[in-house]
């Protein structure tokens, strides 16, 4: 195992400039009259440029944590900071604007719009920014080049393989040049070869563009690519594992 355990208490010394700070968050859902705790007093810090993996069994709270960091949900208590923004206090409208500029999303099932071409799918988040058509074209082309799909830019999702669709998803995630990319099991719907290609691409994105990536995964091979892996169980952080070569990449 190329991963080495590290204690939670050591994180502060490793992350002098964290981009994500989750401070003592608590999250529960209500099912009828029953209150279900999903995250319990969780504190996490993610330094800029880190590739972080989130693992844990179903119901451990990893996707909920991802939602909170991405501003898709709000904690019941506690704070979530991304950069200088206290996103746990933002309104729905503020979060929408913030997500456009600051977060790139990669989904397990790609979630590309079937009626749009690869180009148009990648262009979608740019429509929300004050950019000219020429500026949008330049950014979309660059993103598609980075994922090696420029020659397929006018294909619709139905005309692309799963791996190619996920590459379009990655291009869409990076096209606005966000500071943080969140990925929800990005290889969960792919065969081993395609999954490996996608993970290679994510590593490239992190290296070339210096992006911070937070990835939820069940796949140990995907987790191996991360600099650090947080293991959650029953809403608590039970293990914080740092890859031996982390920081040397």
């Amino acid at each position: 195992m190329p991963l080495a355990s590290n204690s939670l208490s050591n994180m502060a010394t490793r992350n002098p400039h964290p981009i994500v700070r989750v401070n003592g968050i608590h999250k529960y859902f209500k099912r009828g009259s029953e209150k279900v705790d999903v995250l319990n007093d969780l504190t996490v810090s993610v330094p800029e440029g880190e590739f972080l993996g989130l693992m844990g069994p179903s119901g451990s709270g990893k996707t909920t944590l991802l939602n909170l960091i991405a501003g898709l949900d709000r904690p019941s208590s506690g704070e979530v900071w991304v950069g200088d923004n206290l996103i746990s206090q933002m309104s729905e409208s503020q979060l929408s604007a913030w997500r456009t500029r600051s977060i790139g999303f990669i989904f397990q099932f790609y979630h590309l719009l079937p009626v749009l071409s690869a180009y148009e799918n990648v262009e979608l988040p740019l429509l929300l920014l004050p950019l000219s058509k020429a500026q949008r074209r330049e950014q979309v082309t660059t993103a598609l080049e980075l994922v090696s799909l420029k020659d397929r830019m006018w294909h619709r999702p139905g005309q692309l393989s799963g791996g190619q669709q996920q590459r379009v998803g990655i291009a869409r995630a990076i096209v606005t040049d966000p500071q943080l990319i969140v990925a929800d099991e990005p290889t969960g719907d792919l065969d081993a070869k395609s999954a490996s290609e996608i993970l290679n691409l994510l590593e490239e994105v992190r290296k070339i563009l210096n992006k911070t990536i937070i990835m939820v995964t069940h796949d140990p091979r995907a987790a191996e690519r991360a600099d650090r892996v947080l293991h959650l169980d029953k809403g608590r952080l039970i293990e914080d594992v740092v890859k031996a070569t982390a920081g040397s990449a």
Partner: protein
Amino acid sequence: MKFLGLIVKNIGRNAIRSILTALGTMMLVFVVTLVWAILAFLNVALSEKNANFKAIITERWQIPSQMPYTYASTLCEGAATKPGDVRPMDSMTWQFYGGSIEKDRAKRGMNNVLFAFSLEPIKLLTMMDDLDNLPAGQAAVFGKSVKALQDNRQGIILGRTRMETLKKKIGDTFTIYSMNYKEIDLEVTLVGEFPEGRYNNSAAINRDYLLAAMDAYQQKNGKPHAMANKSLNLVWLKVPDSATLSKIASQIESSPLFSSPQVKCETASSGIAAFIEPYRDLIWGMRYLLAPAILVTLSLVISNSISISVRERRSELAVLKVLGFRPNQILTLVLGEAILIGALSGLISSCLTYGIVNFPPPYGFGGIKFPIAFFAAFSIPLAALWWGPALGAGTALVGSFVPAWGARSVKVSEVFSRVG
């Protein structure tokens, strides 16, 4: 505008459903346009003017009104016989002459019949609604037609639609075989046409010609024509204000000259309303039941289509939100789809309705054959071209609002639906 492409592509997502929705919209807009065309025309006819309005004199107790022509000259003076009596500003007599250009009765139909106003030609320019305030250019052209009818008492002026239906052109001479003036068939020459619009289906002949034909009938047969004593259908008076109208009405209704048959004088709109009275329930039903029911149905058709569309792509809408689309932008996208379908199909429908209804056979119907009072057929007004898009867009907006609000409220966490 940046989202227009997205809206259009979403409409094309399920082409069959979009086409069916558009066809449903077009059909319903077509029916509403027909109904509104009739109601709008009647509204105009029944609305009172504040000044320079017209009074209508008819037989008091009978519809259709049939008065002796000997009433005409006195009525046109407002029955002013004594010093101090008030006279109208202008006047016009109407005799209805109906016939067909087809001699064989068995072959008579809408394509060859003709109902003409028999009147003093100059009154076309001064007393007929909408013709008395034509734009200068149109007035000059129409003035030539009126002059031609004055100069040639055997002349006839036709509306464009009627002209095309009868397949006649200016200069053609033909015979009208009468339907209500038995044995008084008139040979006429087409000398001009009405301006495009309200009078597309109308016809006008010189009253002197009809009167002379009745005289000729009497000379030939040794007795007056059966219609001789009841050929005056209406008399129109133009008055400056309601006080003058009241005075003239009093003069006419108190005059012993008009005792058999008795006459009544009222505002034009009241007179028309009396003609329309037998159709009151039908018109009420059209206005307050049929048209609203169609609009509600139209809203439901669009609501159903948009609801299905939203339900099918909840996760896509959630993805849009995740990417940063604001709730109101999602709302706008969904409403935009509905409004675009509604407005486009409404526009197509109203254009087709205008053409199909107004164009003469064989290209169209030559007007809505809905004979009420002395209105033989109704044309679709030019204004109806915006009724369709407005109707389509309006009902689409109403119908799609609830599903669009549902789309706006989609939870972004639905794309990460697992509580992992």
